[in-house]
């Protein structure tokens, strides 16, 4: 496939791996601990595990798998809200497939569907809008989740519904924002990160500048990164070069997609429909200020939170979970007391075991549960 195969070339991967090893060797005398580089985005985590990128890296470079998996960080209370909305007999509840298995305090959406709720998986919010056109006697709710990458699609769909005067469509808005979340990770006292791979598709929407504070205020090296294996390796090489040269700037490895100023129509649609929430609850990370958006009052007719009674109960994370420490790179997944035992992909207790993009599930699925016993 064009623009994909070229970025999976093994020869170039070998070249980059060599270059990474060379810098790591030069840096070794200065290091008191391994360098920790966080890939924020679950999509990057996926590529790193799929292509065994950690195995290609020298021992003094550790990848820390960040909290950028929207399905993983969804709090149980929000899943309960979804189930409650979906169990309304007049409602067709639509969602991306990834969200179906996320456990709520009582059940997941998959279990609610098995119990008779009309829940349908859609590829696009536009498909949900089509369902609303075809089922005028039903209320169609789309479960909007994800970072800025997915936010424009929800916003454009609401704007389209408004233009066409479709009154039986609404959005259950659970979109989250990247920058406050990275800031929360950076502000944590036990944080030890040395550099970042920034999420390429978030940057595609918001541009390069929102990441400046990471370099300017926190003096961390950061490279906006694409999603193929060569993208990840090249960005790691770029981060290491910055560290070697004692620089911290925002660099863009993913120029084929990311424009410095982001995507103007997408940003306009977002600011038309959404506004920042004072705070948003995350599974594993607690409450983070300004880390989510809600719909503006002007779009109340398309806001599932206003149209329906949403219980909005806060359900605490299980006490035994150490997801927060894993996400900050303080401990490795297999150091968690319940990793692989009480918490596993089939019965996830913590956020990071929920989706294959979560660090714990990724390690578990790649045989690392053996590591704990070793």
């Amino acid at each position, binding site marked *: *496939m064009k623009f*994909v195969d*070229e970025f999976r070339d093994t020869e170039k991967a070998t070249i980059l791996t060599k270059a990474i090893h060379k810098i790591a060797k030069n840096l070794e005398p200065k290091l008191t601990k391994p360098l920790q580089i966080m890939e924020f985005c679950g999509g990057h985590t996926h590529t790193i595990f799929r292509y065994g990128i950690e195995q290609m890296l020298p021992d003094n470079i550790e990848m820390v798998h960040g909290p950028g998996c929207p399905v993983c960080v969804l709090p149980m209370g929000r899943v309960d809200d979804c189930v409650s909305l979906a169990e309304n007999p007049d409602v067709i509840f639509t969602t991306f497939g990834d969200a179906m298995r996320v456990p709520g305090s009582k059940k997941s959406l998959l279990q609610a569907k098995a119990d008779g709720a009309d829940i349908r998986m859609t*590829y696009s919010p536009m498909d949900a809008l089509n369902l609303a056109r075809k089922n005028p006697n039903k209320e169609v709710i789309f479960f909007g989740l994800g970072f800025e990458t997915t936010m*424009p699609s929800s916003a*454009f769909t609401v704007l389209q519904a408004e233009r066409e005067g479709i009154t039986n469509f609404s959005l259950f808005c659970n979109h989250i924002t990247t920058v406050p979340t990275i800031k929360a990770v950076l502000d944590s006292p036990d944080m030890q990160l040395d550099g970042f791979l920034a999420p390429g*598709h978030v940057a595609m929407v918001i541009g390069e500048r929102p990441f400046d504070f990471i370099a300017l205020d926190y003096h961390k090296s950061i490279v906006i990164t694409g999603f193929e294996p060569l993208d990840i390796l*090249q960005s790691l090489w770029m981060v290491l070069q910055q560290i070697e040269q004692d620089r911290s700037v925002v660099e863009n490895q993913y120029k084929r997609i990311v424009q410095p100023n982001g995507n103007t*129509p997408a940003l306009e649609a977002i600011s038309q429909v959404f506004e920042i929430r004072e705070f948003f609850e995350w599974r594993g990370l607690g409450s983070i200020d300004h880390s989510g958006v809600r719909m503006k009052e002007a779009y109340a007719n398309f806001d599932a939170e206003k149209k329906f009674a949403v219980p909005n109960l806060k359900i605490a994370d299980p006490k035994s979970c150490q997801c927060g420490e894993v996400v900050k790179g303080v401990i490795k997944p297999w150091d968690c007391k319940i990793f692989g035992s009480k918490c596993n992909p089939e019965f996830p207790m913590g956020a990071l075991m929920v989706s294959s993009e979560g660090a714990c599930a990724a390690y578990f699925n790649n045989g690392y549960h053996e590591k704990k016993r070793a």
Partner: protein
Amino acid sequence: MCLGIPGQIIAITDAERLLAKVDISGVKREVNIACIVSDEHSVEQCIGDWVLVHVGFAMSRIDEDEAARTLQVLEELGEVQEELDAMLQGVR
């Protein structure tokens, strides 16, 4: 969740609603093109564009020159490595 897939726009299906048909490795589907239309790039001009498709939206045009430049950097890195390796062997 945040992944995208490259495809090429082959036809405009609904200019008013900004919908187009995209070919993704032979699979054809309708996508929304609101993110890639501007005063400088009209709806009609989108035909033939390579785009990144995410949840039914063409989110961004793919810049072919930048893709080539990224790969070129890696070619050059390989050439430098070869030369350094040869140099080191010369010293031995």
